[in-house]
């Protein structure tokens, strides 16, 4: 994943397209800092692995017993746990990305971390890409754990399901990018509530637990704006092995959000710190 910052050729390309001085290709060094911190707090990392386990267990053993088989992509009949697990996998990527990027608020407003970083050769895109990469890396770890749990519970039935992990990375990337912009816009930690106000309905209403086909049309359009919806569609498609060209659109939407989010984050950091 870190290849976005690791690859010299890509660095050169990015340097040409991004504003002068805003990217020097040292984003990885900021990832190292985060890794160093978590090396001291690896228990925190581990706890993130248990969360999905509880979720899947709850649906497999408890909830799944109440709900008969449901209709998945392409009219496929499948047990409810198999229907909901891929969605939970990407939802957990979303949650991880949002909570990780919210910590940027403190680093930006109180700790002066980015002030000190921007006094080195690193530019605003290095900061944005560095923080994004760490978030994605961390989500990747959780996605692998989640996938392993699914496999153990017999919820992995096709080799396509292996692509759940990259899907989680893309979802995490999009949410991290947008989450970072939000974090730079917050003025106090009380405003974290606004973020919850966005994330919770997104979690519940993005086709995570049921298809958004049940909504009347205008509401469906709203649901389709949700990045999580696109992540869920991708995940469920790969998890069941039912692929379609629409998946390209879902992926494009998430990638586009990432680009916009990175651009916004870099701009905001510049506006706040390099004034």
């Amino acid at each position, binding site marked *: 994943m870190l290849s976005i910052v690791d690859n010299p050729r890509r660095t050169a390309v990015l340097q040409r397209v991004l504003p*002068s*001085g805003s990217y*020097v290709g*040292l984003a990885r*060094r*900021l990832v*190292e*800092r985060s890794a*160093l*911190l978590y090396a001291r707090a690896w228990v925190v990392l581990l706890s993130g692995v248990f969360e999905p386990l509880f979720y899947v267990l709850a649906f497999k053993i408890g909830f799944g017993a109440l709900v008969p088989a449901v209709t998945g992509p392409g009219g496929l009949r499948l047990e409810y746990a198999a229907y909901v697990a891929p969605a939970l996998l990407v939802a957990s990527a979303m949650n991880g990305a949002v909570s990780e990027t919210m910590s940027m608020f403190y680093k930006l407003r109180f*700790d*002066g*971390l980015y*002030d*000190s*970083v*921007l*006094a*080195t*050769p*690193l*530019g605003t895109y290095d900061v944005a890409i560095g923080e994004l990469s760490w978030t994605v890396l961390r989500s990747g770890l959780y996605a692998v754990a989640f996938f392993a749990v699914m496999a153990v519970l017999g919820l992995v039935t096709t080799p396509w399901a292996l692509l759940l992990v990259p899907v989680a990375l893309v979802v995490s990337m999009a949410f991290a990018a947008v989450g970072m912009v939000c974090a730079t816009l917050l003025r106090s930690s009380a405003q974290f509530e606004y973020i919850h106000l966005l994330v919770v309905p997104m979690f519940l209403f993005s086709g995570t637990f049921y298809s958004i086909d049940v909504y009347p049309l205008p509401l469906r359009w709203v649901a389709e704006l949700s990045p999580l919806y696109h992540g869920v569609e991708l995940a469920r498609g790969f998890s069941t092995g039912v692929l379609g060209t629409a998946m390209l659109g879902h992926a494009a939407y998430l990638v586009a959000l990432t680009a916009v989010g990175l651009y916004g984050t870099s701009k905001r950091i510049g506006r706040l*710190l*390099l*004034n």
Partner: protein
Amino acid sequence: MRSDEAIISGTGLVKRFADFEAVRGIDFQVRRGEAFGFLGPNGAGKSSTMRMVSCMSPRSGGELRVLGMDPDRKGPAIRARIGVVPQQDNLDLELTVRQNLQVYGRYFGLTRKEVRAKAVELMEFARLTDRADHDVQPLSGGMKRRLTIARALVNDPEVLLLDEPTTGLDPQARHLLWEKLFQLKQRGVTLIITTHYMDEAEQLCDRLVVMDGGKIVAEGSPAELITRYATREVLELRFPPGDQHAAVDKVRDLAERVEVLPDRLLLYTEDGDAATTRAHDRGVRPISTLVRRSSLEDVFLRLTGRTLVD
């Protein structure tokens, strides 16, 4: 490269925040290897200038060259070769002393091996070796300041920018820092220092500019400025606040210049003791008298009509 070349130069340099002009067209040159000071009261525009030089704040007008490059276009290349000590410490409070230095070195693209060695050397320099693997948070203010300065040296900078390096430190810690800065200067590092302590400026700076309200009001070496704008000695006559006005007329002709402060009169004269005797003869009875050498404080008072440190 000649040693008297300008390593940094500003011409008509302006910094605007919305419609407020913090730096109002200043000209200055810093030569390689010298210690250059920006002296001025709160809000003079010292930090704003430093931030422009360290490529962390785009200029609003005028010209600026740092190491021969334009900060607007070569920010990262310039920052790679300078060290920045901001007015407010911004150490990484989540890391240890050693990690602060190592991680910061990594931001400059140094290898792991290089930063390991560098951290050891700099902890020695900052006298923090015994705290190497402690958290930064509980360090004293002076230790944090030393670490911030050490951190700014991690890339072996050619220019070190220090924004009020000793504000908030006790006298002992200040002297220790001065000594460290002196060592750096000996090694050929160009120092740029802002301060509102005139003794610091006199101690450290080869040359300095006095800033006030976003403008440079004087420039020269500390000694030059004192000769130009003050007399050799100053006689301070201290009165109960308010009573000083009555004595002004009696002493006016005893000195080249008399400054009236809220609690005292300053008589600028070549011979302080003689003036003391004559004032006494004329029946002037202050609470206390003091004869001292002129300082940059007096230069500042002369130039702006205000004291530097309130």
